[in-house]
């Protein structure tokens, strides 16, 4: 295997790994653990979370 291919594989692996590492942080709920202080915050929490709430027929989350 040439040196150029080795470097390409290394760079690709690093990019993929860092991308996978960032995913959970991007999906984290920004409102978790926070006191709700006003109506705007309440509406934003409800809208954000309601989109992910399970519906009938889906398997329940444990």
């Amino acid at each position: 295997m040439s040196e150029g291919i080795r470097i390409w594989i290394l760079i690709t692996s690093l990019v993929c790994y860092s991308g996978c590492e960032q995913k959970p942080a991007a999906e984290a709920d920004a409102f978790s653990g926070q006191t709700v202080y006003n109506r705007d915050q309440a509406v934003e929490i409800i809208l954000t979370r309601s989109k992910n709430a399970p519906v009938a027929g889906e398997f329940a989350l444990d």
Partner: protein
Amino acid sequence: MVFDPSTRNEVELSSLWKRIPGILVFGSGSCTSSNLFNKDLNHLANRYEGKASFNLIYIREAHPEGGFQPMLQNDFANEEIPPIQDPSDLESRCQAALDFRKRKGLNLNFLVDDIDDPVAASWGAWPTRIFVVGSDGKILYAGDQGPWYFSVTKEGWHDPPPSFLESEFRKRPFDRISLEEFLETHFSDKT
């Protein structure tokens, strides 16, 4: 994963519907809906005893002291609720749950979400919501967003949400019949 407020032991959520279907009522001591329907929940729990397990999952306070305090116009919502501090750790949330159970005389199985709200977030359950899960783990009833569509009995109590919220809620097929109607349709009571 939730917690038993008395022992602080971890409880698998799936254990709530393992043997018989589980009813999950999400709420908190400062939540008007949770306070209004305590007698109705007790009544349904007695009526369907042995047919389904009735569980209250205590989540983040809806209206803690110093927090969001909406002006409720409906006379029906004129319920005396003592000031409740927003718990800052699991220990104080467990205590808030035990205080609420004692104050309202609820005979439901009480459990508590962790302090960073993982269960409330993944179930879209804040400030209040109802689900029924079958013993195969499939959701049978996913109540629409509380407080507007939190319906224990056939008589609703809350005004509809603003139209921009309503159009968002309509994008997902949540259930708008009450828990009572759902149980009457799908379960035989013990009488």
